[in-house]
């Protein structure tokens, strides 16, 4: 074999050796790295984390979440109390909650909103407004009938109707707008609430909150 070819062959062999070593190491590292990464992130699980309901957790979507509920209902409760119809009322107005309408794309338990507004007003502004438990009317009427028929005792005369009428209706609506492109999904939600005068049908108070979220799913799910 001519010397020049021997040199080339020798150089090639050295390179081959290096390549063998490097590729073997790389392959082994890749296999080990693959196993380590798949494995098990958080092998012992993730302990339960207590979070404030108004903070975003690591499990998130673009829909209605607890932090939105807290933000919106806090704002609405404060806003209702500052409205003249409530703030300057000589006697505490009686309010009936009319179910919130969900016009978004997210099925939700709508009563959460009106319930939290009611709880906030009852607990933080005791006595300034009174809510009527209309959703319990069936049980209340049944109780009254039992008292009227003498099947149960009564500490008052059950004959006259004592169920109070509403001065105002509190209601709301959730509306949404969704955009979906290859860049991700975006959801805008408008939360609007109204206080309606039961006698005149006038809207005496209205306020709203807007929340927009967007995100892009892992490529494995796109």
């Amino acid at each position, binding site marked *: *074999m001519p010397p020049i070819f*021997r040199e080339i*062959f*020798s150089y*090639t*062999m050295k390179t*081959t*050796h290096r*390549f*063998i*070593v490097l*590729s*073997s*190491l790389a*392959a*082994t590292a*890749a*296999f*080990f790295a*693959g*196993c380590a*990464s*798949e*494995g*098990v*992130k958080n*092998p012992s699980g993730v302990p339960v984390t207590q979070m404030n309901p108004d903070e975003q957790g*690591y*499990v*998130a*979507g*673009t*829909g209605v979440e607890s932090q939105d509920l807290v933000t919106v209902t806090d704002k609405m409760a404060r806003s209702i109390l500052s409205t003249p119809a409530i703030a300057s009322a000589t006697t505490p107005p009686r309010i009936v909650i009319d179910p919130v*309408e*969900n*016009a*978004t*794309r*997210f*099925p*939700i338990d*709508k009563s959460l909103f009106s319930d939290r507004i009611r709880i906030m007003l009852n607990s933080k502004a005791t006595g300034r407004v009174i809510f009527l438990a209309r959703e319990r009317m069936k049980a209340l009427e049944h109780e009254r009938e039992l008292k009227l028929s003498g099947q149960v005792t009564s500490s008052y005369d059950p004959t006259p109707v004592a169920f109070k009428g509403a001065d105002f209706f509190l209601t709301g609506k959730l509306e*949404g707008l*969704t955009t*979906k*492109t*290859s860049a*991700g*999904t975006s959801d805008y939600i408008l939360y609007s609430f109204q206080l309606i005068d039961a006698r005149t049908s006038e809207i005496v108070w209205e306020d709203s909150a807007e929340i927009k979220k967007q*995100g*892009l*799913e*892992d*490529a*494995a*799910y*796109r």
Partner: protein
Amino acid sequence: MASRAPALPRPGGCLKIMLADATYDSGRLTLRLFLRRGVVALLMLAAFESLTGCMDEVASRPAIAYTGDPIVDGNAERAAAPPKDRALWDDRIAATALRLGNFDEAKAKLDDAILQGGGIINNTADAAKARSLFHPEDTKAFIGEPYERIMDYYYRAILYWRDGEPDNARACYRTGQVLSSDVEKHEYKSDFVLLYYLEGLASEKLGEDASDVFARAQALTKRHLPPYNKDANVLVFAEYGHGPVKYAGGEYSEQLRFYTEESRIRSARLTVDGHKAWLPPYDNLNHQATTRGGRVMDHILGNKAVFKGTTDTVGNVALLGAVVAANQDSRQGNEAAVGLAAIGLISKIASAATTPRADIRTWDNLPQFLSFAALKLAPGEHSGQIEYLTRDGDPDPDLTREVTITVPADTSANTIVFLSELPH
């Protein structure tokens, strides 16, 4: 120097011959031995790793004592399945529960499935694994293809109607439309007729004008959609035929494909108090599954398949080169043979470890056709008969069943009738 060196024994030959050769420099011999042993050890390790995988992935499946009750057995399967398949079993059980009239069970399972797949899923370890070269796609948690996810919402909406929550039913239809829109083909619109038609019906029931949604629904089908009847108090949801089943195609099973079988049943007819209500096929899940554009994951699986094929070819070429070099009967040839064999084996192992297999977990008890009709019936009990009709319009007598519809005195609520050709 090279010409003086004796030929190396062939790979796999007796080491003693090599050790006995006095012409070998001891340092080079040590290096060569180290290299050979090192390469062999690494290859064996890598092969072992690729063949066995990580031990934590192998989980024994508890034995199931089947009872014959599809819901009980489905729940047992769900309990025995890995967590990544939980939503799949939720879906299957929910469909069965709906058909058997166990609406509470259906609701619980659909809520769980929606909870798992309803948000924006990212930063999850199993999804990252599914994208990696060495794991199949079904490593990720199942949430279903768009048509399957839509059916979660479609079925859940029926239960919202039943609970007197048409606005939440409408929310389900709207999410279904978003899921149905095809972003991959850049056609951001859905072609699922009932999602629009029923959204409009819910809006009408809520006192809103739904003429635009009705027009959109009508534009999606050649069939004449019945105009909304706000006074209708009985909503009939019907389904017939068998839905799509996934299978894997392509050289490395990297392509997600659908097996569809055209249903013998092409429509249904509900007769109540002598009046006939037609239940034509408004939506076809086979069409929904097969006409949607590709997935991003298809590109990833395609790349995995290319990598698998390339490394396999490189392995073949290198191993063939190793054989040719080994036959040179020279030391250089043998050294080259060892090197090429090592490269070939590493490539072959990398190829064997690459798993581009597509996820073919299927919600396998879905129907092919979906239909709907709205009726106005007086409060009380009504006897009826459901017939499933073939392409020729003849009822299949084996599928004809008697139905009883009970309309409550409270006319504000809607009565829901769910009719399925599928047994469970």
